[in-house]
């Protein structure tokens, strides 16, 4: 029962209420952070499929490090980048559980690239939510492997120079080449239509796991308004104008 529900007058029926899988804890994300939308979508997917009792999440290191406090389901906290490896262990030890990881780009694409690629290649029956905001948010806005060319960060004050630091890593395209994964898709959450599409993709990724299809990864292109130093409303526009040029949306691999 939510705090606000008591004030609803007679005759009104709920259109949207806070997901039951979320705890009462207030999100620790910055104002307007797309992480909040994605966390909420994962909770909605868990509610929709009715799997809260047997879901185990793996919290990453990064902005979503307190994820275990936001959800009303079991959680394990993995070392930086090792969420897929921990998820593999939990899923293999108890295949009845629904195991998902929720990782940022610093976690999944940088230090955890090896664990992710091998978990995908083995076709582990887990669900991975990959939040790609092109920056290391929690530590103060350093360059990540997914940072766009020319993008200013704390460690690339003149903009990312591809001659020195290389090109942004398209993790989803890379994983889609492998035979292991069942479902690889890239979504975004900058407007309501895309939020609904991302929600469908997350539900599908969880369904794949329930049906035993194998490794499913949903990449979500997000913005970090705090480290871009722009208001949240402009950050959503930034995603459409800048990030989506390098990270086009759509399903990259769907195995039936």
């Amino acid at each position, binding site marked *: 029962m939510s*705090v606000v529900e008591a004030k609803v007058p007679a005759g009104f029926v709920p*259109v949207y209420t806070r997901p039951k899988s979320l705890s009462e804890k207030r999100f620790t*994300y910055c104002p*307007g952070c*797309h*992480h*909040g939308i994605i966390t909420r979508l994962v909770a909605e997917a868990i509610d929709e499929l009715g799997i809260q009792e047997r879901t185990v999440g793996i919290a990453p290191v990064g902005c979503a490090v307190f994820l275990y406090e936001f959800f009303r389901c079991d959680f394990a906290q993995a070392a930086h980048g090792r969420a897929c490896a921990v998820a593999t262990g939990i899923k293999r030890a108890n295949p009845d559980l629904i195991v998902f990881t929720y990782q940022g780009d610093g976690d999944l694409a940088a230090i955890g690239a090896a664990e992710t690629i091998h978990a995908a290649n083995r076709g582990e029956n887990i669900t991975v939510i990959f939040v790609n905001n092109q920056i290391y948010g929690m530590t103060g806005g350093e360059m990540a492997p997914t940072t766009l060319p020319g993008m200013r960060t704390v460690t690339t004050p003149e903009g990312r120079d591809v001659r020195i630091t290389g090109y942004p890593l398209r993790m989803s395209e890379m994983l889609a080449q492998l035979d292991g994964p069942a479902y690889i898709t890239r979504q975004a959450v900058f407007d*309501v239509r895309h939020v609904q599409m991302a929600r469908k993709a997350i539900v599908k990724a969880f369904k794949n796991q329930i049906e035993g299809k194998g490794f499913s990864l949903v990449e979500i292109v997000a913005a970090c308004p705090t480290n871009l130093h722009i208001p*949240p409303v402009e950050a*959503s526009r930034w995603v459409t104008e800048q990030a989506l040029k390098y990270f086009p949306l759509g399903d990259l691999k769907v195995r039936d």
Partner: protein
Amino acid sequence: MAKGLVLVDKDRCKGCGLCVITCPFAVLAITSELNRYGYNVAGQRDPEKCTGCGMCAQMCPDAAIEVYRLRPVKEEV
């Protein structure tokens, strides 16, 4: 009479304004009211226009918004 009702959990709201730009009828606005964390919270500027579509709640990054819609009263035959 408004068809919809938007309830904002003021302690959760961080005043990011994503609900304000999402609302198709300009019902919501960032108010001058501060919550206990010092954020200007979102509120209904024009509650009569609300249709209860729920788009603001789908966009809210803090799951602070709940939306209700007036149930159409069935006429007795």
